[in-house]
């Protein structure tokens, strides 16, 4: 359809060869002369007052160069907004979760640092802990923060339309409770930082950050140094998924230990530290009441959420707001009411994770829609088609849909899943005996923001340096944590300048060189940074045009850039090589530099964290997923042999990268649905390694994954592109849970779907059927 030379092609990623060769350097692969190794002492209690810390013996251990505690950071606290700064680099006064950072040591090697940790004596007064968010909100619950009474970290209450009237008019209303558990980001590269403090006030840090400019600001504030003196260099990132956004204790401690020791310090967490105490997804209890007409038309949602925020606020306000925004999409909901409490608990801090708050709400809403379809004898595909939003739709809360291919994604997913062949409603099957392996299919839809519009600085900036030999460097602060954005942004440069992908180099983010950027979160890079790159590339081309026009003796408007050539449209023999044009331009007159620049920010006002009114983004993606499940009725084990993703991504800038995002979303979603769970009991972490935690292996994921891209050419995103890496994980859970119902007739409203829960649900159903039969006889 499109006549692009580079975009839309299945091009291998530009950083693939160095990564496959093992020569790509991640933070832990770096070392500096004289470098020390840091280790962090963590709290053995979920809640305790720190009475005294004695570091004397640790400091005296040969090989130890620095020991730090909370007081070393003064009163510095950090957080998303001024009113939510409740995190400390090292605990002050109290510890609030198991594994919270209490002290840190830098020594000549890791073994010495570990030995020193054992020599630090901390006297605690153990306090009662609360690890359940509902209990945390009760009167008399242990309190985490003195200035946040009732353990309320975030409270949001809002509504649009007339929900009570809608329920009165509804033919059918049902209310259900859903629970989504505590899961991790699951990146394989543990958090790591290598810091070098140069007196009097210069910081250089290499840290694994998907959004490095959070930490850049954090460090400037924490250490009171100008931003020009904070040099954050971004090595390759071994996965982020939301767990490497901001500054964390590992980063602050590396810098403070370096400041104190005068030597570079590297801290690399162990996986056990990540699994026990690093940030994770918000567990959520969702109570959802929905009213429909008898044909399945949704009239209203009334939703109450209790989210487990852990011991700090993090980006929690955005999570709570997101859950509200996406109560309104992807189905038409004319009336909506929402109240959410994000409770502080004595657990590690909950933050954004691929889908940030939206998985949890869409799991509830899409499974409940399936329940309603079942109760009313409606077809699951048709009920979704009936309620699907469309281009030009405006939600009750004021979100504006400028492009929408939701219907096409439903059609595409149904076709690819061979739905009509495999789907039989549970009602038709329920009187047949369950075999050893019961099979079922399920479907669910999604929507997502294409670049979260948060408050504050929200624009991306790109600088393109065109070298005299016809190659180009793209300076961007948008990082690639594995999703392939570096490749996609380089493809945009290549497309506009008419050069090859391999002619474009994207150096790593370096805060003293690359432009400030909000970060790689909320699915913003391809669409938002993409537009900035497009503007910058056009700017660079504009600077080349006068010389091209002169050399080709043609009007600038008639000149095209393609295939490493610059030529007159309609007269391809009137051409010169791009590299000849750049050489000539650079030497023109007394010489010049070709530097294109572009900035682009979200065009909608910032999210309203109070009321949720207005847009969450300038563009929204839509999608549908279909799952095929097999349930072993003897063991309760659920497997997903086949899954389809059909996604309206606007335009597939690189279909190979898009497929990778879709498949990765399935992996994260299947893990969340069936396998993964952080389990703590009596203040102990029962899942301290990846095997116990349940990160899926190749045996746990669908053998067959089908990825369909529906292109709607959005008016906002770069070249019409919308997001394609997070929305795709939003509907994985409900598609699987709906398929499980279709297989065995039970609803799983409590994640993960463990074999125990499946067997119990089957037993309960049998007992209920027996009781009903006896009651009738």
């Amino acid at each position, binding site marked *: 359809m499109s006549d692009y030379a580079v975009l839309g092609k299945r091009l291998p990623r530009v950083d693939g060869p*160095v990564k496959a060769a093992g*020569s790509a350097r991640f933070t832990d692969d770096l070392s500096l002369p004289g470098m020390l190794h840091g280790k962090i002492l963590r709290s053995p209690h979920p809640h305790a007052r720190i009475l005294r810390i004695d570091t004397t013996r640790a400091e005296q251990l040969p090989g130890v160069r620095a020991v730090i505690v909370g007081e070393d950071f003064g009163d510095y606290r950090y957080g998303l907004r001024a009113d939510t700064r409740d995190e400390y680099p090292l605990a002050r006064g109290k510890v609030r979760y198991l594994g919270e950072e209490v002290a840190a040591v830098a020594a000549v090697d890791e073994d010495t640092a570990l030995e020193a940790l054992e020599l630090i004596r901390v006297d605690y007064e153990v306090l009662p802990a609360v690890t359940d968010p509902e209990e945390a909100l009760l009167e008399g619950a242990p309190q985490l923060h003195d200035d946040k009474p009732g353990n309320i970290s975030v409270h949001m209450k809002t509504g649009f339309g007339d929900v009570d009237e809608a329920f009165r008019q509804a033919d059918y209303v049902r209310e259900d409770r859903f629970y989504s558990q505590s899961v991790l980001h699951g990146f*394989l590269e543990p958090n790591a930082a290598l810091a070098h403090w140069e007196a009097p006030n210069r910081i250089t840090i290499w840290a694994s950050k998907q959004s490095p400019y959070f930490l850049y600001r954090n460090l400037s504030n924490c250490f009171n140094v100008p931003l020009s003196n904070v040099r954050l260099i971004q090595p390759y990132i071994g996965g982020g998924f939301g767990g490497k956004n901001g500054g964390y204790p590992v980063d602050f401690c590396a810098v403070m230990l370096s400041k104190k020791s005068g030597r570079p310090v590297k801290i690399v967490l162990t996986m056990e530290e990540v699994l026990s105490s690093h940030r994770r997804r918000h567990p959520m209890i969702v109570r959802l009441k929905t009213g429909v007409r008898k044909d399945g038309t949704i009239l209203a949602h009334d939703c109450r959420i209790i989210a487990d925020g852990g011991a700090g606020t993090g980006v929690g306000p955005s999570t709570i707001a997101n859950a509200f925004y996406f109560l309104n999409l992807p189905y038409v909901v004319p009336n909506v009411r929402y109240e959410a409490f994000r409770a502080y608990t004595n657990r590690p801090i909950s933050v954004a994770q691929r889908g940030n708050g939206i998985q949890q709400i869409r799991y509830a809403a899409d499974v409940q829609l399936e329940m309603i379809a079942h109760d009313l004898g409606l077809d699951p595909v048709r009920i979704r088609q009936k309620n699907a939003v469309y281009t030009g739709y405006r939600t009750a809360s004021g979100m504006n849909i400028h492009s929408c291919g939701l219907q096409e994604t439903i059609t595409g997913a149904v076709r690819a899943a061979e739905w009509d062949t495999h789907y039989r409603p549970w009602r038709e099957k329920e009187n047949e005996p369950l075999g050893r392996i019961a099979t079922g299919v399920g479907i669910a839809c999604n929507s997502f923001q294409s670049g979260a519009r948060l408050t504050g600085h929200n624009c991306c900036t790109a600088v393109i340096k065109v070298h005299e030999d016809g190659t180009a460097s793209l300076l961007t602060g948008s990082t690639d944590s594995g999703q392939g954005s570096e490749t996609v942004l380089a493809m945009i440069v290549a497309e506009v300048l008419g050069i090859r992908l391999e002619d474009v180099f994207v150096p790593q983010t370096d805060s003293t060189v690359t432009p400030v950027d909000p970060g790689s979160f909320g699915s913003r890079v391809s669409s938002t940074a993409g537009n900035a790159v497009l503007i910058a590339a056009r700017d660079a081309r504009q600077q080349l045009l006068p010389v091209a026009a002169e050399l080709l003796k043609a009007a600038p408007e008639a000149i095209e850039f393609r295939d490493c050539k610059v030529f007159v449209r309609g007269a391809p023999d009137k051409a010169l090589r791009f590299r000849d044009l750049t050489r000539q331009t650079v030497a023109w007159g007394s010489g010049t530099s070709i530097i294109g620049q572009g900035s682009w920010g979200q065009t909608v006002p910032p999210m309203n964290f109070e009321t949720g009114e207005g847009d969450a983004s300038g563009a929204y993606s839509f999608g549908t997923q279909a799952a095929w499940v097999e349930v072993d009725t003897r063991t309760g084990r659920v497997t997903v042999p086949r899954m389809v993703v059909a996604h309206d991504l606007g335009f597939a800038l690189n279909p190979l990268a898009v497929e990778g995002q879709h*498949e*990765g979303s399935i992996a994260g979603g299947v893990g969340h649905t069936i396998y993964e769970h952080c389990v703590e009991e009596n203040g102990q972490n029962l899942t301290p390694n990846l095997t116990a935690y349940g990160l899926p292996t*190749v045996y746990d*994921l669908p053998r067959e994954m089908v990825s369909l891209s529906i292109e709607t050419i959005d008016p906002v995103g770069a070249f019409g592109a919308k997001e394609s890496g997070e929305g795709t994980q939003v509907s994985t859970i409900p598609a699987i849970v709906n398929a499980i119902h279709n297989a065995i007739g039970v609803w799983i409203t409590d994640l993960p779907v463990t074999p125990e829960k499946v067997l119990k649900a089957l037993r309960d159903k049998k007992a209920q059927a027996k009781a009903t039969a006896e009651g009738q006889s």
Partner: protein
Amino acid sequence: MAMQQMQLKVNGTLHTVMEQPHRTLLEVLREELGFTGTKRACRVGDCGACTVIIDGKAVLSCLTLAVEVQGREIITIEALGDGDRPDPLQRSFVDCGAVQCGFCTPGMVMSAKALLDENPHPDPDEVRRAIAGNLCRCTGYAKIVEAIEDAATRLA
């Protein structure tokens, strides 16, 4: 703990190092010999990111003491190829989109290499078994399996 002299044959070259006997092969490869292509992730044998090949078999270097593998043939990712002259496996991983964040990639490639060296024509089940101990969060494994099958075809 007392240092001990060790001789390790890595990628065909004999290296003599002074090391404590409790040091793992992973630590010695990365910290003493500079083979940082072998990744340190879980350190307890769960994830496979540290996979190397010893005498033809894929081995977790985080669970292997360096002192134990003196005199054996140790192969790391660095021996396979580089950006200019990649091994067919590395080329297939890149071309098939099997690389995303890249942190699991060297370990995956080494597990695949051990498989293809022993069994040049594996069926899909054999490919999956070979990487069952290598975790990846980014890809869902589909393109990794495809890349290994693609490399087997290229090598045939």
